[in-house]
């Protein structure tokens, strides 16, 4: 499809930004934040979809890259249905994700739903 071809370059760019942010993170978290903000801005401008796993590693408020070790604290809370509480260390924003069973759909849909 023509639309996919046009977006393919942009998607490559987004992917590259995402990976570059991971590589740069230990050296300069500010740069990683810059990359992620550009990535999100580009995706927003062209209304592109990002995988939830990509979205979760980027903080919504400050756009910093959250890795479970550096940048974000991850806890499991809740007895019956465990929730993952991800807290960004730089801006202190909590995100709760429900750890639901993966739905048996054809296209790989993510197991959790952001609250």
């Amino acid at each position: 499809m023509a639309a996919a071809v046009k977006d393919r370059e942009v998607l490559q760019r987004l992917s590259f930004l995402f990976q570059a942010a991971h590589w740069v993170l230990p050296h300069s978290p500010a740069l990683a934040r810059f990359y992620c903000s550009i990535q999100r801005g580009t995706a927003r401008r062209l209304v592109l979809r990002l995988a939830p796993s990509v979205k979760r590693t980027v903080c919504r408020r400050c756009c910093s890259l959250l890795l479970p070790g550096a940048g974000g604290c991850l806890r499991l809370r809740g007895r019956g249905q465990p929730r993952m509480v991800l807290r960004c260390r730089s801006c202190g924003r909590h995100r709760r994700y429900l750890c639901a069973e993966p739905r048996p759909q054809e296209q790989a849909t993510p197991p959790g739903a952001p609250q």
Partner: protein
Amino acid sequence: MSVIQQGTAPLRKAKKATVKTCLDNPFVLEWKTIDGEDMHFILQTLEERIKHTGLKKIETPRVKKRSLTKKQMERKCNAGTSELPKEENAEGHRQKMGWTDTSIRRQLAIGVNEVTKALEKDELLLLLVCKSAKPAMITSHLIQLSASRATPAGQVPRLSETIAPLLGLTSILALGFKKQSDKFTEAIAAIIPKIPALEVPWFQYRTEESVDFAHEGSSENEEPEQLAEVLGDEFVSLKRKRMESNLSNVILQPMKIKKLVPNPNKIKKPPRKKKKAFQHN
């Protein structure tokens, strides 16, 4: 890319399921399952060690009596049974609830949250994860954490089934051995060589030998430089210096695109009968 909705379901044709492209995570972080002999060896070593030290959490009186009282209440439906758990809990306290040996308990990190905290403080020597976690993303964050702290971590299929009853718990998904553990040092030293190394790209390649750039990487390196020029020269020069010195080992992962088909069985609200021009959010 827009999907035209129609009011009546039977008019939906197969052409309407337009495929949406979505950027998928280029990094695939998976546990490497330890199978076969290594798994048996690890489990046996741990069992022996735990039985030797006699570490156990005495919790059984509470659990059994609560389940009994629930069944009793269902069958008898008496108001008097509500007093039973209180009495039996008091009896349980007399039997010394809790762990048999607290000093040994402090050398272990049991449970995902405790393991996560200990990893963040860099206190663990070894980490074992159970494969039977449902959903699997409960333990998936531990991969990145343990890689960042350079802690060997392995996924053993039946960890929970084997070790949880030994310790008197219902299920163990993650088990960590802290750095100050005396009694488990031999077991740890025996287990560590059996665990395969975790593959996390951005932590691993830093310490390894230099790897050539991928083809895609070389062509796309122009982009961040173009972006940086917008900001200013100082920023560019700093970034270039850093990038050249530290990122010689980068391999760019191929971009992954996930193609999504919107669920055809999705229950959609019937659109209002007003004209499309007047639709508002």
